C-alpha cells in the first residue's frame, strides 16, 4: 500500500477518510461489510497496521485493556481478510498485529494463569499500547519536518554563473564510469536483493489444515508449522486455525498447560 501512498502526500488521517461514489465515508460501517473497492480506498488512508489499529481504537473509544478488544479484533481480522483477497503486499505486517490482537483476545477469554507473569515482562496489550504511543510522536513530527523550507521544493540556491572560469578538471574521467557503474549496480542489487517470498494465504492454510486433519483426525499444531515460512507462515496458520474453530470444523485440545496443542476434526462427527 505504500506504493500507492508515495504518489501523493498523505496528511494525517483526514476526518473524511474516503469518498465513495461522491459520498463521504466517515464512519466505519457497523456491519463490517464494505464493498472491496471502497475498502481499498478506505485502507489506503492508513500508513500501516499501527495506524489502522489506532484509528479503530480511537473511533470506537475502546479501552484496549478491557474486554472490548474482542470487537476491535473481529473488525481488524475482517479487514485483514479482505485485504488479503485484494492481494496487498503489506498483508504480513497487518497479520502480525492481528495475531497479537488474537493473543490478547484469547488471554481475555482464558482464566488468569496460575503463576504470576514476571513483573518486568509486558503483557501483549501493554506492549501494543506502548508501541502505539511510541509511534505517535513520529507520526506527528512529520508535519513540522515537512513544513521546513526545503531546497528544490520551497527555495533554491542562488548561484549566478560566472563565465571564463577555466577551472582545471577536478574529476578524473575514470570516476565518471565508476559513478555510473555503482549507480547501475546499486539499482540492480536492490531490485534483486529482495527475493519475494511465496504468497501464503489464509485460504490455502485453511485447506491445508482441513486436508491434514481429515486424513489423520488429530494433528499436533507444531506439525502444521514450517520453519521456512517464518513469521508470516506462523501467523497465517494461527488465523486459519481460528477460522476453522469458528466454523466448527476443528476443535483444539490441550491436556494440560504447556502440553502440545492438537487440532481435532469435528466436522465428520456431525
Amino acid at each position: 500500500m505504500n506504493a500507492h501512498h508515495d504518489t501523493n502526500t498523505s496528511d494525517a488521517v483526514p476526518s473524511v477518510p474516503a469518498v465513495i461514489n461522491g459520498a463521504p465515508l466517515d464512519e466505519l460501517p457497523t456491519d463490517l461489510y464494505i464493498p472491496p473497492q471502497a475498502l481499498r480506498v478506505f485502507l489506503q488512508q492508513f500508513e500501516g497496521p499501527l495506524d489502522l489499529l489506532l484509528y479503530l481504537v480511537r473511533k470506537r473509544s475502546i479501552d484496549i485493556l478491557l474486554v472490548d478488544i474482542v470487537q476491535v479484533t473481529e473488525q481488524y481480522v475482517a479487514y485483514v481478510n479482505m485485504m488479503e483477497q485484494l492481494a496487498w503486499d503489506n498483508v504480513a505486517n497487518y497479520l502480525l498485529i492481528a495475531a497479537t490482537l488474537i493473543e490478547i483476545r484469547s488471554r481475555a477469554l482464558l482464566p488468569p494463569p496460575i503463576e504470576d507473569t514476571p513483573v518486568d515482562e509486558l503483557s501483549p496489550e501493554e506492549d501494543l499500547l506502548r508501541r502505539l504511543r511510541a509511534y505517535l510522536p513520529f507520526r506527528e513530527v512529520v508535519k513540522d519536518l515537512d513544513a521546513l523550507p526545503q531546497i528544490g521544493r520551497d527555495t533554491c540556491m542562488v548561484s549566478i554563473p560566472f563565465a571564463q572560469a577555466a577551472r582545471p578538471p577536478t574529476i578524473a574521467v575514470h570516476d565518471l564510469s565508476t559513478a555510473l557503474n555503482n549507480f547501475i549496480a546499486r539499482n540492480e542489487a536492490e531490485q534483486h536483493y529482495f527475493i519475494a517470498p511465496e504468497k501464503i494465504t489464509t485460504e490455502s492454510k485453511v485447506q491445508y489444515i482441513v486436508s491434514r486433519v481429515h486424513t489423520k483426525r488429530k494433528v499436533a499444531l507444531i506439525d502444521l508449522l514450517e520453519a521456512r515460512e517464518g513469521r508470516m507462515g506462523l501467523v497465517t496458520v494461527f488465523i486459519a486455525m481460528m477460522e476453522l474453530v469458528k466454523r466448527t470444523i476443528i476443535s483444539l485440545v490441550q491436556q494440560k498447560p504447556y502440553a502440545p496443542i492438537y487440532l481435532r476434526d469435528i466436522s465428520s462427527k456431525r
Partner: protein
Amino acid sequence: MKLSQVKYIVEGALLTAHEPLQLNDLKKLFEVHECPAAATLEKALMELTAEKASRPVFLQQVASGYRYQLQPDLMSRVQQLSESRRPNHSQAFMETLALIAYRQPITRGEIEQMRGVTTVDHIMRTLLANEWVRIMGRKEVVGYPALYGTTKKFLDDFNLKDLAHLPPLPAMPTIDEMMNTNLYGDSA
C-alpha cells in the same frame, strides 16, 4: 578595508557560489594584507542576513555554511520556468526520515519495528540517493545490520544549521491522550 567593501565582496562570492561557503572560504577572497578580522566578516554576514525583508533572495546559514536562497513565496513561480517538479514526499517516506533523524543511528529493522510496517525498498533508495541518509556503521548484533543516520546535505536541504535545530519531537502521549486528544485533527 571598510565594512561596506567587505560586504560587497562577500555578497558577490556568495551569489556566485555553487555550494554554501564557510568563514574559512570567505577569508580566501582577500589578500593576506587586507584580510578582515573574523569579527568584521561576521558583522558583514550579519548585516547581509538582515537585508532579507524586501529582497527576492536572502542569506541563510545552514550546516555547511552560508548561502543565498530564493524567498519561498517565489519558488512556485520560478518553477514555472524550469521543468522541475515539486517533490512531494509521502507520509511513509517522511516517517522513515523522521525516525532516522531523531533516532540515529538506527537500523532498518528498528525502523520497521517502530512503524509496524516493512520499509519499502524505494523509500530507502530515495533517501540514500538524495544523500539525506547514509550508512554510519554496522550494529554489533547478529547479521551486522547497517546503521543509518542523516547527512550534512539533509541539514542543508532542510535549512537546518544542525540536528539541534530539528523541530522538537512531541512527547510520547499518555494512554489517555492517545485515546481522547485531537491528535490528527480528526473528530475522534
